[in-house]
């Protein structure tokens, strides 16, 4: 890859923007991997891990692109395994512990809806990097959404316990969703020059679909608001993020450059 991308006027902002979403995918995938051999049945073990692997795939593509664009010679592995906690810019909802199956389904509904809207908007972008990634990723996330909403409907309409667990799951995820509505100067600057989609519109489309989905499940939760103060995007993560990173990175740190 030549050094041309780094001379674009939108740099380094676009690379930072891509890194945010690379981190979202990586951390979401890593967290979902904790379901290996623990799902309620083998059918969902495979389904959840398919979703996890799709996200690891998204992260690999985006991290590789980030490494090429920043021009510091960092590979996808360097970025995934060589950064410390505060250098990760994923939103907190992606690192949120899985909880029980009900909470994981709730989290998947919220995230898959967000990703379908965001990546769909990327797909319509004039920026080639976003358009190419967005069209492929949006199609995958539409399946994740179908899986999550199909399960959510069954939990909501199943037993009293399944309905309660789903409701508690949404309640646990809810406080961490507002961060996705934060529009900081990085996003505004890139959107103003038309490089990335308007996040206010993405956010509005996402919340409208999310509230409609909840209404269909017979649930009602407070309107989402963007929180003030530093969150995951600024490297301010939940306490549980430390152990997630430790598990993800320890092999690479213990045996740098190891191959098999």
């Amino acid at each position, binding site marked *: 890859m030549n050094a041309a991308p780094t001379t674009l006027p939108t740099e380094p902002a676009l690379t930072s923007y891509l890194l945010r979403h690379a981190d979202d995918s990586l951390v979401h995938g890593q967290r979902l991997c904790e379901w290996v051999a623990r799902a309620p*049945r*083998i*059918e*969902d073990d*495979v*389904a959840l891990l*398919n979703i996890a692997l799709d996200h690891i795939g998204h992260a690999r593509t985006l991290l590789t692109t980030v490494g090429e664009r920043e021009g510091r010679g960092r590979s996808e592995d360097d970025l995934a395994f060589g950064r410390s906690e505060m250098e990760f810019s994923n939103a907190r909802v992606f690192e949120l512990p899985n909880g029980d199956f009900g909470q994981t389904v709730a989290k998947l509904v919220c995230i898959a809806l967000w990703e379908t809207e965001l990546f769909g908007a990327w797909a319509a972008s004039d920026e080639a990097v976003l358009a190419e990634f967005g069209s492929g990723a949006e199609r995958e996330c539409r*399946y994740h959404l*179908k*899986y999550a909403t*199909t*399960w959510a409907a*069954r939990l909501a309409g199943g037993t009293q316990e399944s309905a309660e667990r789903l409701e508690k799951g949404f309640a646990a995820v809810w406080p961490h969703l507002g961060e996705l509505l934060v529009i900081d100067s990085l996003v505004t600057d890139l959107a103003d020059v038309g490089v990335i989609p308007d996040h206010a519109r993405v956010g509005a489309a996402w919340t409208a679909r999310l509230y409609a989905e909840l209404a269909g499940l017979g649930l009602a939760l407070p309107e989402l608001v963007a929180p003030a103060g530093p969150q995951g995007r600024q490297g301010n993560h939940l306490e549980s993020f430390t152990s997630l990173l430790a598990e993800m990175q320890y092999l690479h740190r213990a045996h740098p450059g190891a191959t098999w």
Partner: protein
Amino acid sequence: MSTYTEPLWEVFVRPARGLSHMHVGSLRASDAEMAVLSARDLYTRRSEGVSIWAVRSTDIASSDPAERGEFFETAATKPYRHASHYHVPDGLNL
């Protein structure tokens, strides 16, 4: 696990347009929609197919394995049922 609360489904996948659906395995699911979703995740994750059928296992009528003799093995002694016993006339190009 000794008891299942969810019914068993048989999964059929069509590998490509123009081919028939083929039986690939079975799974547990609460209903038809979940069965097709699970079948997608279990049996088509390496591009195995373009279409999925899921059928409740109890809805399939099958031959009795104990009757295999009278059902199938009698055909083995009737080679004249095969088209290979027709003679192709001389001069016919196939």
